């Protein structure tokens, strides 16, 4: 458990945040400039906030009232930076073991062989970091943080510098970190799809303040909370793999509703998180017939939100969970959408990208 309470004034805005991060992966989610990195750097001890209190697993890292401020090297954190920050003069192996040189021998730590195996970096050990690809660098950076015997892992937009292909290469490692390593993770991101896949808990931020804290499904499916903007809106459904079909589709069960997605390489019975972008859903007042789309979710309109632009965000309560639908204001008027009405959410199978599908911890 991590408890954070920080106040820090910048010339143009003030950060005032207080939250608790339970075990698992806690995502600090918000636009750039909302203060996420300030929080992580304060937790790491790289930034001295004006006032605050930070407690990690009963260890006080910072308490400005009592004049306590542990220096970074005594905080026992594994920090995964956006740019990796591998030591260029050391080999991959030396980078991985760097933290272990300074950790007390008594502290329990991950087995180096297991971490190397988990991250698939065994073939890189004798290389220097300069020649590694972006994805390889980030995997080594994850391993280096893990092997320093941390009590808390911090990750500041660790995928932001990578292209889409590299992102989907790294995302599963964070899922495994979340599910297989007992250390809590504080993860900064402005990407709704990353947060949807990874977060156990989401702390949504806006302009230096925390606007909402809850599970990924709760926070991301709330049409009032759009830290990444309406274009990024989308809901998270939990679904179980039912069958893989010969035509390349995977059948899932989401609260009794059947979903068909492009083949998902996960065994039958596995629980998945599926993120469905709000702009990929079509809304229908009548039970649709004769449509090519395979996924039809019946539900009741819970909320209709209108912003500045031409779009309207509709929250539909379905048996599979809350579904966000983004339609135009004109469509909303034509359909006479209102709270309490029955409606159907239609999702094209191919609209769900592989990066939008993640495994979920038990």
């Amino acid at each position: 458990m991590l408890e954070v309470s920080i106040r820090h004034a910048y010339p143009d805005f003030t950060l005032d945040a207080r939250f608790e991060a339970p075990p698992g992966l806690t995502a600090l989610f918000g636009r750039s400039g909302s203060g996420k990195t300030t929080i992580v750097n304060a937790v790491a001890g790289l930034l001295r906030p004006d006032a605050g209190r930070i407690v990690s697993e009963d260890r006080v890292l910072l308490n400005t009232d009592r004049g306590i401020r542990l220096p970074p090297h005594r905080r026992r954190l594994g920090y995964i930076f956006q740019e990796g920050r591998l030591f260029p003069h050391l080999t991959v192996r030396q980078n991985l073991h760097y933290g272990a040189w300074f950790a007390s021998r008594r502290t329990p730590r991950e087995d180096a062989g297991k971490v190397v195996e988990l991250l698939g970096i065994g073939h890189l050990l004798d290389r220097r970091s300069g020649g590694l690809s972006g994805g390889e660098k980030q995997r080594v950076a994850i391993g280096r943080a893990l092997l320093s015997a941390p009590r808390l892992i911090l990750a500041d937009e660790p995928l932001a510098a990578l292209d889409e292909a590299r992102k989907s290469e790294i995302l599963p490692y964070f899922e495994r970190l979340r599910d297989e390593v007992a250390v809590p993770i504080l993860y900064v991101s402005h990407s709704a799809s990353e947060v949807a896949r990874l977060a156990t808990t989401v702390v949504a931020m806006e302009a230096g303040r925390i606007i909402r804290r809850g599970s990924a499904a709760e926070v991301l499916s709330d049409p009032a909370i759009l830290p990444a903007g309406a274009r990024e809106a989308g809901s998270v459904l939990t679904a179980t793999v039912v069958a893989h079909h010969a035509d390349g589709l995977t059948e899932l069960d989401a609260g009794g509703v059947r979903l068909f997605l492009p083949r998902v390489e996960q065994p039958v019975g596995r629980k998945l998180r599926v993120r469905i972008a709000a702009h990929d859903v079509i809304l229908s007042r009548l039970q649709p017939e004769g449509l090519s789309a395979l996924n039809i979710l019946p539900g009741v309109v819970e909320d209709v939100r209108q912003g500045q632009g031409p779009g309207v965000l509709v929250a539909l309560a379905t048996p599979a969970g809350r579904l966000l639908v983004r339609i135009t204001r004109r469509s909303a008027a034509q359909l006479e959408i209102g709270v309490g009405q029955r409606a159907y959410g239609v999702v094209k199978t191919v609209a769900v990208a592989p990066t939008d599908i993640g495994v979920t911890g038990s």
Partner: protein
Amino acid sequence: MNWLGPEEWRAVALSLQVSVWATLVSLPLGIFVAYALARWSFPGKQLLNGIVLLPLILPPVVTGYLLLLVMGTQGPVGGLLAEFGIVFAFRWTGAALAAGIMAFPLMVRAIRLSFEAVDAKLEQAGATLGAAPTWVFLTVTLPMSLPGIVAGAILAFAKAMGEFGATITFVSNIPGQTRTIPSAIYAFLQVPGGESSAMKLVLVSVAVAMVALLLSEMIGRRVAARVGGRDA
């Protein structure tokens, strides 16, 4: 080395001795001062920077004379040290001191630049991995600045080999004691028929300078490749 006479040979050996000592002894201090100037902010930082650079700008004769005033056996510091048996005036140690001080600004500049080029973000990464500041310096900053430190040391060595004005003012031109290559060339040129001896020492000077340059290029390239993270 038969073509060098005993007197010339003595000048070459003395120059090497003086320059090696001047470089090695000033290197730790040079690293410390360069790091302080590159990374710390403290009152009097500009003053320290000025004092370090002063020998580069002052006429060498002035530096030598100031050394004589301060470090001579009658001077405040030299007198004190003389009580402990440490004498600089008119000894080879004095020549090394003069050469070291004259070379110091060049050394500090090169090392300071290379410290400044080390990304402070890497030092932060080291701290988050549990390394205390001293360890961060020893395991990240220092190895990453190695090309600049090597370059600074070689530059300082070459400068020490060529130091003349401050040396001759401070410790005079005593054969076998303080007569380094430049002083010897100067002395040979003062006596009739000394040109051939002077010429030989000129050739030695050129050779030493060339070797030092090539060496620094070679070491610098190798270290830079390693520090740059490429597989060497």
